[in-house]
């Protein structure tokens, strides 16, 4: 049986994407690095939806709509986070998350 026509393969790939995202989220020392890692987590979720959509689900449009929704959320999140990073950088002159100790702008 072809490994690319198996549901578990895609689930493992999505789990690895999630794990890469968690690793980067914990280890990265800059806000933009953490933003990049969050994109990995979102992509793992979207790949999960697509895998279940094409192998299990009765209606093959639902998973695609979910994935489009996740893409829209990710675009909105990236725009917001980048503008927050610019505002934070203007205030603190730094991107190190550990230097951002108070929320007062």
């Amino acid at each position, binding site marked *: 049986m072809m*490994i*690319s026509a198996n*549901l578990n393969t895609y*689930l493992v*790939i999505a*789990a*690895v*994407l*999630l*794990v*890469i995202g*968690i*690793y*980067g989220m914990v*280890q*990265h*020392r*800059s806000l*933009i*690095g953490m933003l*990049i*890692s969050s*994109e*990995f987590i979102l*992509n793992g979720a979207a*790949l999960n939806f697509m*895998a*279940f*959509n*094409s192998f*299990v*689900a*009765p*209606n*093959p*449009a*639902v998973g*695609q*709509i979910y*994935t*489009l*929704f996740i*893409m*829209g*959320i*990710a*675009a*909105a999140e*990236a*725009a*917001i986070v*980048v*503008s*927050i990073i*610019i505002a934070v*950088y*203007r205030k603190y*002159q730094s*991107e*190190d998350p550990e230097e951002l100790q108070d929320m007062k702008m």
Partner: protein
Amino acid sequence: MIVFEYIAEILFYALVCLTFTGGIVAVRAKLLMHAVLGLAATLFGVAGLYFHLGSPFLAMMQILIYVGAVCIIIVMGVMLGNTPDQLAAKNLTGRNLPLALLACLTGFVSLFVATIIRTEFTVATEKVGDMSIEFVGENLLLQYCLAFELISVVLLTAILGAIILARGGREGKTS
């Protein structure tokens, strides 16, 4: 006919390698620009996986939205944010390394052993429709209209919020 299946299988392996390599580059890179490059490689790989899953439409959307929009926004953030060099050098020797490894080991083992291996997913007995764009569009605009409207409101709010947050330009610089 069988030759094409083997070619598709080889392409699948190549896409998985591209995805994982991009991920490792993105989390281990010293420069943030290289991390964005790794992210773009991963997104291309995932787009190819969508193609394998039978949805060319979503593969194109992935390349258009993620690689074309999100990565460019992040590159803008990198260039405007200007990470100092010593912070970039600290990126690899962060003291969070054991914690990060522990977190991902726990996450992967719990997902893999507890969920993926032990669960038997029941396949739906009858399927309606197909993976085509027409069917997706019909569902999106008729049955799942709320998701369509909701995502447009979310995007509008995000654009307004981004404008308000980043307003003021460089004259607001205080230190």
